[in-house]
């Protein structure tokens, strides 16, 4: 079948197993009547069911909730939060503010990239170990090829969130999964060469999520709103201040390092 035939087959309609609305009647969500069968799910439970098609235990859901809660910091200096705050200061809409802030969270040195790289790394390493590879060797090979995400932090190497999330995982009896154990072993190996490479929140969340059965793609979708709760306060406060007064920059705040003045 050539490309145009494939497109022709799909024009005008969608075959789906994910869901549909029947206006005035009902809505179907992954094969279930949303209102009749799923109405009592809490929002995170519905969200992860939408992503994975799987149901999670109350303990697992508690841990998933906490992954979002413990990293929602309403600090308008943080780059993604600052977008929401600037939008408030510039009198944009809350939806645009939060959408842009979340989009910006898909970053390389924090947020989206480290999270997906970390979970993929743990899953791949575990597979290699099941095939008889030595962890130390696997880590050394990986370090030579690319950076291992989930360790180290841009501003400080210590991560205040880990103690709290680990304590909860322990309380929920969800701290004995193989990926979590692996993540600590990797940390030990990395620390021998670089003391700054302590595990960070992305590493811990990724390991715990891998132990809950999340694939990298599922995890990417799950972590999309992971810092969302910290953003509305940043927007609100800026929106309530006099317009334009969030981190105003005078001309002196710009350090020009380009070519000298010249004629066009």
């Amino acid at each position, binding site marked *: 079948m*050539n*490309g*145009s035939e*494939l*497109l022709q087959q799909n024009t*005008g*309609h*969608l*075959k*789906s*197993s994910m*869901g*549909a609305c029947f206006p005035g009647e*009902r809505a*179907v969500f*992954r*094969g*279930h*009547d949303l209102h009749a*069968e799923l109405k009592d799910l809490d929002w995170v439970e519905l969200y992860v069911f939408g992503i994975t098609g799987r149901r999670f235990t109350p303990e697992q859901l508690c841990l998933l909730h906490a992954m979002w809660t413990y990293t929602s910091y309403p600090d308008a200096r943080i780059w993604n939060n600052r977008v929401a705050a600037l939008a408030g200061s510039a009198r*944009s*809409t809350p*939806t*645009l503010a939060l*959408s*842009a802030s979340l*989009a910006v969270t*898909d970053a390389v040195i924090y947020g*989206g*990239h480290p999270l*997906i*790289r970390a*979970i*993929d790394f743990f899953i791949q390493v575990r597979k290699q170990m099941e095939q008889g590879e030595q962890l130390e060797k696997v880590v050394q090979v990986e370090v030579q090829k*690319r950076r291992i995400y989930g360790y180290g932090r841009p501003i400080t190497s210590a991560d205040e969130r880990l103690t709290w999330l680990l304590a909860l995982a322990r309380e929920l009896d969800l701290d004995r999964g193989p990926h979590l154990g692996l993540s600590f072993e990797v940390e030990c190996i990395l620390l021998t060469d670089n003391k700054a490479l302590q595990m960070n929140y992305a590493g811990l969340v990724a390991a715990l999520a891998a132990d809950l059965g999340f694939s*990298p793609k599922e995890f*990417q979708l799950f972590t999309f709103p992971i810092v969302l709760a910290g953003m509305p306060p940043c927007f609100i406060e800026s929106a309530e201040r006099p317009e334009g007064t969030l981190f*105003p*920059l*005078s*001309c*002196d*705040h*710009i*350090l*020009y*390092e*380009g*070519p*000298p*003045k*010249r*004629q*066009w």
Partner: protein
Amino acid sequence: MGNEKQMEQIRTRIWLEEPEPDNPFATKAAYCHGYDVYGGMLGKARWVEMLFLLFRGEAPTSTQSELLETLAVALANPGPRDSSVHAAMCGGVGGSTAASCLIAALAVGAGQLSGGREVFLAMEAWNCCGTNLEAWQRRLAEPADDIASTWPTPEHPPGFDPHGVSATTPVKQTLARLAGISAGARLSWLKANRSFLEVAAGRPLSMSGVAATALADLGFTPEQGEMLHLLLRLPGAAAHALEQWQYGHKKFPFFTIELDNDPAKGAV
């Protein structure tokens, strides 16, 4: 008020602003890579010259300006069948905010199918292969890099149309026109070797492939090319979004959906 902390500054090689004498937050003069924007460029510089200057740091030659302007016209409206414009129209038809329509177009038009990421990857291929046909053939035969990232694994060679049968007339027209302008080597080489590359890719050249080539000929990095491709395709998305609001949602396709697990039909 004491100013105990040292002032934190934004560093830039692009932009210098001098303040009005009565207000340090008001601009008296702004210089882009050294050129006085309001006192020297305005009325003389073309839009594409400003674009080129911003990204490359130097004023373009007349040939570079003509090439970028011609590319900008080619990319300005991918048309309402294009996914990014379709997304913008989904915003427009429901009365969504103007910015959300453009955000929709950017999000969809950022991808690896006809989007900014495809241009980025195609420009990386140019950096790697240059005008060496054997290098292209080797690269096009290699599987895509499948290291996990925020982007999905590419499903087709960047710069080629996975659903195409043959290179479309606009693709060939655009390539011919741009190759006729460019002082760079890539567009002319692509025009001469298109059929060989299409055989190696197993697919026809796409407009994003032509755009990537032009942007590489203009000396842009893949990162700059990705940004410019995103920018240059927005005008059509904006216009179509506004148009659909005027038409109204009853004239906009809603399509049909067929559930294969409808609980009302006994499916689990």
